[in-house]
């Protein structure tokens, strides 16, 4: 089959069902080299299933998926050699130390100059002073940083990050965002799933919105938002119901405020507005 030459990740008509329920239903997308691509959607939308397929943990029922040109079903070993994965769960060996976790992972991935790389990443992610601590004694944020360090250890050209910042405090989240930005600056392709809108907007070059196993919109965050307008006016009536009006620019928004003569709040349109407009539901 024809494979787009620029696509680092190429997914065509992928479907996957669990017990008759469709987790993915004809998903197609392409991610270019060096791009940060976000897959956003509520819990259960199919984000993790797609990541599992792309990282060889699950086989699709239908369709094809390629990573760096390697078929995820037919060439899983080649795929595993070019990816780093941050799972949703903190799947570390909690009875081992920080250093031992990285050492084992480095051996598994045949990382050259392993000990120097471990030292570098411990420093870069601010966990060097916990090098000899048992993982079970680390906070959730520290464990997340360690998982990211682990994924970066083989210096893979592609990173899959499944909800990398869920449950983290703002400082830990910012550290992870910085690492993602540095990865992009180094030319890595980053595929990230999240249900944090601000995360997707601030990090991603392009996003796809997934709902009930289907991609319902795809584009740059600005492109998707511009479908609705630039501003949203909101009013909560006496019964507590929220009313929204989208305006294409500031002039239209002020005109609307004068015309309505009711208390209104104004803010910029975000990706969650796009999701609600497309599905009629809230993201979370």
């Amino acid at each position, binding site marked *: 089959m024809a494979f787009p030459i620029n696509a680092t990740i190429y997914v065509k008509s992928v479907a996957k069902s669990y017990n008759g329920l469709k987790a993915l239903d004809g998903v197609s997308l392409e991610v270019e080299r060096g791009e940060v691509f976000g897959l956003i959607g509520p819990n259960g939308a199919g984000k993790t299933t797609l990541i599992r397929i792309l990282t*060889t943990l699950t086989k699709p029922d239908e369709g094809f998926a390629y990573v760096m040109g390697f078929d995820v079903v037919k060439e899983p070993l080649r795929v595993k050699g070019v*990816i780093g*994965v941050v*799972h949703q769960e903190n*799947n570390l060996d909690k*009875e*081992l130390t920080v250093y031992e976790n990285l050492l084992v992972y480095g051996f598994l991935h*045949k990382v050259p100059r392993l000990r120097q790389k471990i030292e570098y990443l411990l420093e870069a992610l601010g966990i060097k002073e916990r090098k000899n601590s048992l993982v079970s004694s680390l906070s959730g944020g520290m464990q997340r940083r360690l998982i990211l360090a682990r994924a970066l250890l083989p210096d893979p050209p592609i990173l899959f990050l499944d909800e990398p910042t869920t449950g983290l405090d703002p400082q830990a989240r910012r550290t992870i965002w910085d690492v993602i930005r540095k990865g992009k600056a180094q030319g890595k392709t980053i595929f990230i799933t999240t249900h944090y809108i601000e995360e997707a907007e601030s990090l991603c070059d392009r996003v796809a919105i997934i709902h009930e196993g289907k991609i319902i919109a795809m584009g740059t965050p600005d492109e998707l938002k511009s479908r609705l307008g630039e501003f949203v006016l909101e009013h909560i009536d006496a019964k507590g119901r929220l009313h929204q009006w989208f305006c294409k620019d500031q002039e239209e928004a002020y005109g609307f405020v004068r015309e309505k003569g009711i208390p209104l709040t104004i803010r910029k349109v975000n990706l969650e507005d796009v999701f609600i407009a497309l599905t009629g539901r809230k993201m979370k």
Partner: protein
Amino acid sequence: MRGFDWYPVFFREMLLFKRRFFRLGYFLSAMMVPLIYLIVFGLGLGRDIRISSSYSYLGFLIPGLVAMSSMVNSYSWIANSVNLGRLHFKTFQVLLQAPIPLFCVVLGEVLSAMVKGLFAGFLVLLAGLLVPSGISLKAPFWIAFVMNCFLFASLGFVVGMLSKGHEETATYSNFLILPMAFFCGTFFPLERIPGFLRPFVYLMPLTHTNLLIRRTAFDKMALLSWVVLGGYCLLFFSLALKLTKDYDE
């Protein structure tokens, strides 16, 4: 498979083993049951029992306890480790996503479980050698001992892959391991098993380990047991490999 691709998997398990080894609970649990059997059946009840003119009951019991203890320890560690790692801690997925052949993942896990079985078997042997028993440790003993560890480590891997939770792993253990411990020639010769049970007993792999581990030489009479034991090794390892290759979340 490239050379030592299984080694990181093995290395990880050895690090975990080292950490748990120094916990009192692990060491005691590996030792407690066989030691109790050794004291109760060997030194207590078995003091005046003679199995044959050539050796005492202790000489009969100790190789059986080595087989039983190595079976339990090879099996249970890996069954729990694979099951919990797969379903609860999700650490098994890290191994599956490493760029090494799945054969090496299985081999590394099985070899590490064998170390635990061999370790537990050696502890029993050491305790047994402290009392006069007249056992002789010839080549068939060592080969059967190692094959037994490989076989039950592979079976433990299979159970870890098949069971849908920690409780189910314990259920498999109750139905597979416990009956074998008592009926397969650990505590009394197979000739004393009731006739109706004998066909089932001869289907069990531990029976053949117990037959072989007490032999002093390779002879034609034991050939069938070697074939059965080898067959089980091949069967369980192949099954472990197939389940890993077919793994799909």
